[in-house]
Structures are given as C-alpha cells and as structure tokens.
C-alpha cells in the first residue's frame, strides 16, 4: 500500500538552518547537511530545503549547501527558494537535488513549469502554493514573495493549471495556519487534493500527531510537511510515525 509521506522542511538562510520564533529574530538551528541526515535516520520520508535568503548573491552558498546536504542523503531531496529560470533549476539539480520547488516565478511565468518539466521530467517539478483565505471567507488566494503579495489567482484553480502545465506535485501551505501549531487547513487541502490528480503535500500548522491524522483523513493529503516541530527534538519524527501507525495511517514504519 502506498504510504503517506512525512516531509521534514529545513528553512535555510546563508547556509544555516533557521527557525522563526514569533516576535524574535531567526534563531540558528544548525547545519543543514547534519540535520537532513539526522531527520532521514529518524524516519523522514523526504527532505525539503527552502532557501529564505532573499538576496541573489547568496546563490553560491546555497549551491554549496545543496551539494553538502545531498552527498549524504539517500531519500528524495527537494530544493526551493529563489529559482527563477531554467538555468537556476539546472544548477540546483546538478548540485544533487531530485526535485525543485517554484512559487513566485511560476505565477509570474507559468510556462517555466513546462520548461523545467520538459528537461527534467514532471516528477522533478514541485509547484509551491502559499494560500490565504479571502476576507469574504470563500475560496483561497495564491500569494507570492513569501506571502507578501497577493496574486489575485484562486489557489485551487492555480493548482489545476500547474498540473496541466507539467507540475508533478503541489506543495500547499496555508498562510492562515502557518506557525500556529493548531493543525493543518483541512478544508483548503481537500479542495486542492480533490481537484488535481497529482500528489498534494499539506503544509502549515502542524503541532502534533493528531493534526497529521486529520490532514490525511479529512484533508485527503498525500504527504504532510513540517519544519519547526522536528527541530530541537521537540517532537521526534520516530514518535510521530509510531503514533500515525497506531492510528491506522499507512506510513513507512519501521524504515
């Protein structure tokens, strides 16, 4: 049986994993290569590395980080953040990424999805969507630039277009739930997951095992991603997978 994937996300700034703490500066949480390996050993099914360094001059540092992380990682490895062109994507792939994730650049130029998919295959193209519920409460809007600008696009419709253009997976982050640790947005996740035939990764809001159970059951997610709950041993992946297994969710366990 195909299992539900648990994906550990590393937010990286200038070569270091950082963790946002409310109303505080980003706190250093360690070396990406070491953390990725540790997550893999404790049962992560996949690693996503998101580069949050805004400035393009840190690109060489990112590629070095990707190379170091990939060299000791033997599970799928996705890299996102700042990929704007086919050449940016090619550099990340040759540094050892298996998939790239694109967000703002895909909304600005949807044909970029097709260009990367034609060269590297759809399985290598993840379209990330940051979605926020509209003020009138109906539907969700896709946001760009780390959630700073609205695109005017309906998130569900955009996911469908991304699939048609060659995306292999959708990484769907709920901006309303992100950072709250009160659970994933199951309504948003289900709306997208039921409208496309490619896998949907739910993100934003993970606080405990029950949230994962809900997003797999009610949200119809194929995978779920979390960042901060896996750092500092706060909630270990191994324990999470055991709990999911006991709740009757098919997970890769023991790994």
């Amino acid at each position, binding site marked *: *049986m*195909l*299992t*539900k*994937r648990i994906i550990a996300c590393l937010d990286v700034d200038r070569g270091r994993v950082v963790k946002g703490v409310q109303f505080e500066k980003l706190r250093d949480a360690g070396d990406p290569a070491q953390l990725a390996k540790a997550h*893999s050993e404790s049962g992560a*099914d996949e690693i996503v590395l998101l580069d949050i360094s805004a400035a393009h001059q840190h690109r060489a540092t990112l590629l070095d980080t990707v190379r170091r992380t*990939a*060299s*000791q990682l*033997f*599970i*799928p490895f996705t890299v996102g953040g700042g990929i704007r062109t086919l050449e940016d994507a090619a550099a990340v*792939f*040759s540094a*050892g990424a*298996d998939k790239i994730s694109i967000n703002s650049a895909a909304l600005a130029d949807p044909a970029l999805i097709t260009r990367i998919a034609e060269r*590297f*295959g*759809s*399985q*290598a193209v993840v379209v990330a969507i940051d979605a926020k519920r509209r003020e009138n409460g109906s539907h969700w809007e896709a946001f760009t630039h780390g959630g700073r600008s609205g695109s005017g696009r309906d998130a569900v419709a955009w996911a469908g277009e991304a699939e048609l253009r060659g995306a*292999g*997976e959708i990484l769907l982050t709920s901006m309303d739930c992100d950072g709250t640790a009160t659970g994933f947005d199951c309504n948003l996740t289900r709306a997208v997951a039921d409208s496309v*035939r*490619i*896998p949907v990764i739910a993100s934003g809001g993970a606080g405990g095992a029950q949230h994962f159970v809900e997003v797999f059951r009610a949200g119809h997610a*194929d*995978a779920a991603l979390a960042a901060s709950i896996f750092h500092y041993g706060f909630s270990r992946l191994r324990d999470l997978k055991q709990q999911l297994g006991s709740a009757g969710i098919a997970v*890769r366990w023991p*790994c």
Partner: protein
Amino acid sequence: MIAIVDYGAGNLVSVKKALDWLGQDCLITSDPRRIAEAVRIVLPGVGHFASTAALARYGLQAAIADAIGRGVSFLGICVGMQWMFERSQESPETPGLGLLPGECERFPASVKSPHVGWNQLEAAPSSRLFRGLPELSYVYFTHSYRVPITETTTAGCEYGGRFSAAVERDHVFGVQFHPEKSAEVGLALLRNFCTL
C-alpha cells in the same frame, strides 16, 4: 568500472552519489567505448519512454546489447527497466530493447497517477537483488507507467492492482523504484548488484 549510461534523460547525479557512497568505481558516460569496457552497467531513467530513443541514436543500445550478450551484469532503473521490455503504451512508436517479453501499461483511472511515494514490496525469497533484505521493504517510486507481473518478476507492488517492482533474468535486473532514493534498503540492493 560501473558505467552509468547518460542518454540525456534527467538527472544521473543521485545514482552516481549512491555508488560512490558504496565505494564503487563508477563513471557517468555516453561513450559506447566506455560501456564496452564496463564490468557492470546501470541504466537510470526518469521522464518519458520516448527519451530512450536516444539510446539507439547514439550507438548506446548496441553497446549495451553487446555487453549483456557477453555476460556483463545490467541494472535498469525506472524507465531504464521499462526499456528492457518490448514497448510501452506511453510511446508506442519507440521500441524497447525487447530483452524481456511484455509491454508497459498505464495505471488504471481508479488511482492517482503518477504513483509517487514509498510503497511496500513483496520480494521473492529467491531474488538475488533482494538477498538479505526483508521480504516486505518500503522503497520510493515515481512513475506513470508500469510493467505488469511477468514470469521474470521477483518483487511485486500493489497500486491499482499488482505490478512488477523488480525483474531478474540471469545477469539482467530491473527495478521500477529508485534504489538511490530508498534509504538503507536501496543502498543494500545496490550493494547486492555490485557483488553479483
């Protein structure tokens, strides 16, 4: 030397990385002469079946067929495994190597396609590729077409019906999943291939 065949399809870095990790002498190459010198051949592949047409165009198919004929061990991964069969519904005009009988087919409409993620295998105890591995292991798949269960199947997997996750005949092996992305299980399988 293990030749990792480069025919312009996708990303071969991860296969090389895994073989490097296992301490194997390996080389990514699109040169038929290097393939002729190889002691083992790995044919990776992601993407579309039509991309395998490049193998015939660059003389790589002849070099691979010749090496297999001389008893050189061969491992096809993903589309590389599918190419070992006669043809694929994904690109009916592109012939496969036809080393094994059968045709790759689409997943039924009852399941999402592509099949992406970790799924469980049932490996035959007689399989040489899975020697020393648990009969029920999880491995990572990403594919839209599949090889049905045939007489060469040594591991099956369930997703919209059972299909071939691994095939073996003599010194020729194929895996639909990605051993280079399947953690310890995948590395152990590659280690087995390197010692066969």
